């Protein structure tokens, strides 16, 4: 799984949640302030990430997500750990 594909897939997921085109979502965008992600959207995002990347995201980790880049970085790390464990 390449870094680019993780970023593209997360942005595609966010675009689906916001009912918009993926190109309108920038990695530096803030989830709440810029993208107007509400609490149900956040749950939707967590659900999508868990499904898409076969990870489980504990509640306490979800507090770290401020920007789109935070989400991408987090998924990178978690997916890396999963790959490392299974190697």
């Amino acid at each position, binding site marked *: 799984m390449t870094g680019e594909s993780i970023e593209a897939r997360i942005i595609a997921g966010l*675009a*689906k949640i916001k*009912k*918009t*085109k993926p190109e309108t979502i920038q990695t530096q965008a803030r989830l709440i302030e810029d993208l107007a992600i509400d609490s*149900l959207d956040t*749950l*939707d995002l*967590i*659900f999508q990430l*868990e*499904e898409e990347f076969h990870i*489980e995201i504990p509640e306490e980790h979800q507090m770290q997500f401020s920007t789109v880049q935070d989400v991408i970085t987090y998924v990178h790390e978690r997916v890396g750990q999963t790959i490392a464990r299974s190697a």
Partner: protein
Amino acid sequence: MSTPTVVITGLGVVSSIGLGKEAFWRALLAGQSGIKRIRSFDASLYACQIAGEILDFPAEEFFPFGASARFSRASQLALVASQMALEDAHLDCKCCESDRVGTVIGTGLGGAEVYENQLRRLIETNNPRRVHPWSVPLIMANAPAAEIAIRYGLKGPNMTISTACSSGAHAIGYGLDLIRSGRVDIMMAGGTEACIVPGVVAGFNALRALSVCNNEPERASRPFDKTRDGFAMGEGAGVLILETLESAKQRDVRIYAEVAGYAAACEACHIVHPETTGTEEARVMELALEDAGIPAGQVDYINTHGTSTVLNDLTETNAIKKLFGPHAYRISLNSTKSMIGHTIGAAGAVEAIVCALTLHHKVLHPTINYENPDPDCDLDYTPNHASEKDVHVALSNSFGFGSNNACLVMKALS
């Protein structure tokens, strides 16, 4: 303050024989069946393998960028029908006092497909975290009405009526009552159903309510025909704009018909069977005519509940004869379900749209597949061909599981 006259100024319909009132009406007059073999899931093990599905529903056109995932199919159909109705009525909700515009939608099953899909996920994964966070807002029966109000900013009463097969008719009746009460000026009233899902079809099969005419789907729904063997399920939605005559005149818009009366009555008899002498169905029609202040002898058209089950069609025929006496033989009847099947919670609304179009165009659509007269069902069911008639007063009958009966009276404006 006198009770306001309530009129229909907008129609939106989504059905297996056409999207929008023009396509729908054209198909009805042509006697086109929307019943086909089920495509949305593998029904090969089911006794009934046919239904009226909306195969060409352009979800992406109405809900771009995958937005359809945020709505159950019942909500999607209702949202599209409501958009059509608003456009037809030339109604811009931004120009209305939004708390004087309400919404009432009937549905029997709400987001049934979402419930089934999520339950399947839960069972297959044995992991509650795999149930989607949007499940409840999609499944809940009041989602279609709520989504309509959210989309158009309608801040008046927002209600959902669930009385099985009569939900759509009761929704229109409730809308009429609210406008008459003076609490609102305009109502979006209708019904929606997306019931072609495995568990629901299996359930109706288990009740032996469905036609098993699998080899000739388009001939399966044959109301009042002697060989009728059950109904065909259908999906669809119908939404009407109801408003006061005063409001319609101020806005200078087309008026299809007046909603002159309505009655709701419970048979308090059996959870699925009708009271077979027809006394109860006659009673709801009589009450509706009383509410409208129209003598029974002035009725010239009835859009029947006409499901194509042995019991329903016989009971409804008996009820009409009981109430109208010899005049019953002068009334034209038809069954919209002969073409689109039984759209459960949407049926009463879709059939009210048919009444409005019939009063407007003065043409009766046929009851198709009427080939073998039943001596016990001997009224004029408008068999197989459309016919012109100067209809002035129309009834729409809806009889639901749970002993829930509704009758709407519509009339042409003089």
